[in-house]
């Protein structure tokens, strides 16, 4: 039997998916990541659980962008170091689902 998992799965880039979502981006970030706390974290669950792919490790440092946040709260639950200060954006800002 041939292994399906070994075949590359064609994945749609996350940014293309996010293009379909409406964001009203507030200039004030609603989430802060205390990146000092991320140093030495090799599990980096946030990178893998965030459904919008907002966490990236670049050059050994945590890089986070809040703009296309889907406001699910998963990163906050997943982070064991409590490095994520999570809140909702101001009322009326942030993500709005239209077709779901």
């Amino acid at each position: 039997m041939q292994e399906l998992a070994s075949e590359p799965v064609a994945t749609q880039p996350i940014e293309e998916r996010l293009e379909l979502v409406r964001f009203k981006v507030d200039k004030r970030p609603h989430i802060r990541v205390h990146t000092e706390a991320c140093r030495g974290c090799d599990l980096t669950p946030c990178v893998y659980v965030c459904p919008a792919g907002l966490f990236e490790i670049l050059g050994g440092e945590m890089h986070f962008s809040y703009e296309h946040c889907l406001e699910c709260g998963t990163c906050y639950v997943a982070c064991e170091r409590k490095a994520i200060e999570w809140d909702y954006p101001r009322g009326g800002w942030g993500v709005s689902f239209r077709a779901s």
Partner: protein
Amino acid sequence: MSLINNAADDAVFMRGESVAELWVVLQEQEGLPPEYNQEVLAEAKEVAAQYPGQLQLCAVQLRAPLSSPVEKSTVPFFKAVVPERLYVLEHPALGRYTTEGYVAALSWLIRERTPALIVTSATVNGQDWAPRLAAQLGLPFVARCLRFALEQEALLALRALYGGRAYVQTRTRLGRQPALVTFAPGTRGTPPMTGSPAVGLPMPEVITYQPSLAFEERNPSLQHLGIEAPSAEEVELEAAEKIVAGGRGVGREGFAELAAFARLLGAAVGASRVATDRGWVEPERQIGATGKSVSPRLYIACGISGAAQHTSGIREAQTVVAINPDRNAPIFALADLGLLGDAREILRHAMQLLQEESVGV
């Protein structure tokens, strides 16, 4: 459904005359690329060509009377496309742009000549006087066309809707009066004007008017303080032809070098959110989802990894160069040229090369 239509004998804009006129109102302004006029001329010429012998392409220039009779000619306006006729309307109040001056002058000329169609570039000033003129004279008006055409009884136009997310074709009924159209600048993508003025092209017939216009010279309450040119770093990102942008990989110190390189290139400085968040550059320089969307001809991304939040702002850049040490940086997927390395070092060397050349070594 097509914008291209065959000429008809009984087109309403003919008004029983043998030849109708299609005007292109030329605009001059500090900082305004002359290509914008050229592009409208080229577009209008194509429309006129649909009605050979019936629709005459004319240009209209508004200006203050020249102090010396041997003036810097109007020829530099015309590169590839030369109108059949040029109306020069001279009035002391037309030395610089004012709404009232343009509206009064054009109202006068329209009464004098009654063209079939008036087109101008939808520049900031074009969008200032054209709608006002249309309202004042009751002319059919279509703003910011990407394309337009004449039918017997209507003006067909292609327009962008919702910030370019959709396009719409409209049909505006023409009456006996002329219609007014502004043409979205940059749509046609005229090649940059280099080289000498058109040589060997026929000269237009020039008709000069010096009417006494019935308007207060200017709104007395308005005082013009002047027009300020931006420095290279100040060029508004949205309007910049070239942008050199930096991100995390450039660092605070690197931005000085990046700015120097940008200056040499005549480019504006842009930045990713990391750079503006950390105060390396002022927030207005930010490109991306929380910043600006830009559409330069050249975009050089230095030390920018290319997170979606940034790249969503550079989708309309024509040529992209990316400099980044990380081979897997997503920015490379967007780039025409990718350089794997440290942006600061590469820029430093490139700057040297450019300077050496300009000195003529």
